[in-house]
């Protein structure tokens, strides 16, 4: 990898770095309580919560750092943080 005057990188290749390994707590979603408001998808700093086919949130655990922000902000208390079992 040659370093010239500037450095450049392929757009968005930070995805090579799987930050999910940082996690000690895992958010678990309860679709029964979820009202599909989209708050968790909007506020995730890791951009790792997306909408599934039925409009419920789904987490990409390869990147989720387990910060718990979604759990804290969920207006329906539909997300629970559970300790990761190795």
């Amino acid at each position: 990898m040659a370093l010239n005057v500037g450095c450049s990188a392929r757009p968005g290749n930070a995805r090579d770095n799987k930050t999910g390994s940082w996690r000690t707590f895992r958010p678990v979603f309860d679709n029964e309580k979820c009202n599909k408001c989209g708050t968790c998808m909007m506020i995730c700093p890791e951009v790792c919560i997306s909408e599934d086919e039925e409009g419920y949130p789904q987490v990409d655990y390869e990147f989720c750092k387990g910060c718990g922000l979604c759990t804290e902000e969920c207006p329906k208390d539909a997300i629970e943080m559970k300790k990761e079992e190795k």
Partner: protein
Amino acid sequence: MADERPEFFESGHRACGGCGPALAGRLIMKAAGENTIVVASTGCMEVFSTPYPETAWKTPWIHSLFQNAAAVASGIESSIKMQGRDEKVVVIAGDGATFDIGVLCISGAFERGHDITYICYDNEAYMNTGIQRSGATPYDASTTTSPAGKNSTGNSRPKKDMPAILAAHGAPYVATASIAYPTDMMKKVEKAINTKGPCYLQVHAPCCTGWGFDGAKTMEIGKAAINSGLWVNFEMEEGTVTKVKKVKRVPVDDYLKSQKRFRHLFKPEPKTEEIAKIQAIADKNAEKYGTDIVPKN
């Protein structure tokens, strides 16, 4: 309902869990869209989003130095104008680069009237190098260069009023926002980008590591700052305040207590004199911007 707009800030960046600036970066890019060139200054966001050879950005993105993001953006804007292209140039810089190190270049760019949008994500200190105070650090916050101790109650100077400085340059649109209110923030980003001329947006982005709170509370802390009056969300057009977020204001105590950087104000016993000084700052903000909801008789 999920926001359908595509993401231009990618997963896999190395920010702390619950990072306010990471969320700010994501929301800014969601609002700015594909036709954007991002100019970054040195800072936490630059470091966690682009550890070579990786980058979290999916639009053109450039970093040069700590102090010159506004100058680099000026050059890019002039060049794309000459070429007849229509990309929007957005600077995303931290409070250290904006309030302290980059002021000269920002002042120049705003004076020359480049069509750029300058967004400062304000986490109120130099976080990436280990929490040193900046011009944006609030009064009495303990940082590694303004440590609280026997003879000090933390940072001895109040926060610099950067929006007023840039409004005084004749900027057509100056606003403040908070990641705690994502929809409002994205609207302001869009407005700033679509307003011709140099626009400034200052985004409150709580830093769990630097301020000392649990990463799950990032949004809550942002809301508490606004509810206490220590942060005001407003819009300023042509130098006049046109919109202010009104709040039912609460005493500053709870906001201060929830963060390690203010812990010294309550231990071993509450330093009521200092807390009163911070309350006075909040009161002054509320009076200046008229944030208080006045009950109707």
